[in-house]
């Protein structure tokens, strides 16, 4: 069972346009365009909802995919996005200073 939590990195700039979610790293100006699954993950990454719950409620609801496989793919995707500084991942809820 996955205990991962994911949160949007506040140090990136993000905009959705015509269904494309575009994200720019504030550190090195690299521009990313997220695919549909990554966009769902990005939008749901509030730091408080477990990744497993995001997969069940958002990804499995959108795509016809087996939950276990979807979770494994989501973990891989989350780590990939984290490696680019787009998401932050943790085994504990991610609570930001000043967040309500």
């Amino acid at each position, binding site marked *: 069972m996955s205990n991962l939590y994911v949160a949007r990195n506040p140090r990136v700039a993000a905009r959705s*346009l015509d269904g494309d979610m575009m994200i720019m790293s504030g550190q*090195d100006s690299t521009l990313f365009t997220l695919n549909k699954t990554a966009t769902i993950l990005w939008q749901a990454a509030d730091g408080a909802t477990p990744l497993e719950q995001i997969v069940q409620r958002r990804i499995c609801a959108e795509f016809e995919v087996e939950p276990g496989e979807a979770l494994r793919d989501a973990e891989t995707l989350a780590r990939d996005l984290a490696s680019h500084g787009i998401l932050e991942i943790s085994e504990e809820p991610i609570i930001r200073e000043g967040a309500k």
Partner: protein
Amino acid sequence: MVEIGGIAVRVNTLNADFLGMLQNRYAGFLSHSERAEIEFKVDLIDPGLSDGDRPVEVRHQRGVWMFRRGDFLAEWRPASRSGWIRQTANPYSIDAVLRIVHTLVLARQGGFLLHAASAIRNGKAFVFAGVSEAGKTTISRSAPPDVTLLTDEISYVRRQGDGYVGFGTPFTGELAKLGENVSAPIAALYFLAKGNENRIDPITAGEAARSLLANVLFFAKDEELVQATFHTAFEFVSRVPVSRLTFFPDARVWELIG
């Protein structure tokens, strides 16, 4: 005083030859305004003290910007609107410093410098963006007499009201011809593609934003300004028509413009 895009930069030097070189380089963009937005003191150094091919580096720390490249070192303090440039007696180093300073100033004001030719026709500015070899020089060179060239290389874009205005710049490309020091509201942005015919094709807003960001000049590794420039690109494509202009390299392409 060199005034580009309505922003006056005073350059102080004790070297009369260097001053003459700058007056020649920026002819048409010299201003006698009373108040400079930015003031630079230029210290000329011996050519042997330059640092070869060191790439450009722009850093911000505690209210001070530092610009460095092989051929110059500069500091700018926005709070006091002043700075200094250490360089050899050549026009290219200060040109690079001016480009950097303008990108920083514009980023805070919702504008940007763009790898693009631009020109005014019928009172409207048209911007032609693309990387090297995309056709910026070609389309500039083939402009008919009723077209006023703003630049063949670096377009200057400022937010004004609900739209954007294109200004002439002295930043030249292969044409080595200074733009005219005039401005006009931007009516369209075209991304250039060379082809066997002349045609304008729509592009999606997402592609427009991506292509625009790929062509914006930006040197600073500064999160706040990177984010500001990112959002400016989206504002721009939501307010200015953006298309792809495929063109055969002769003057007939201008039948589609204006």
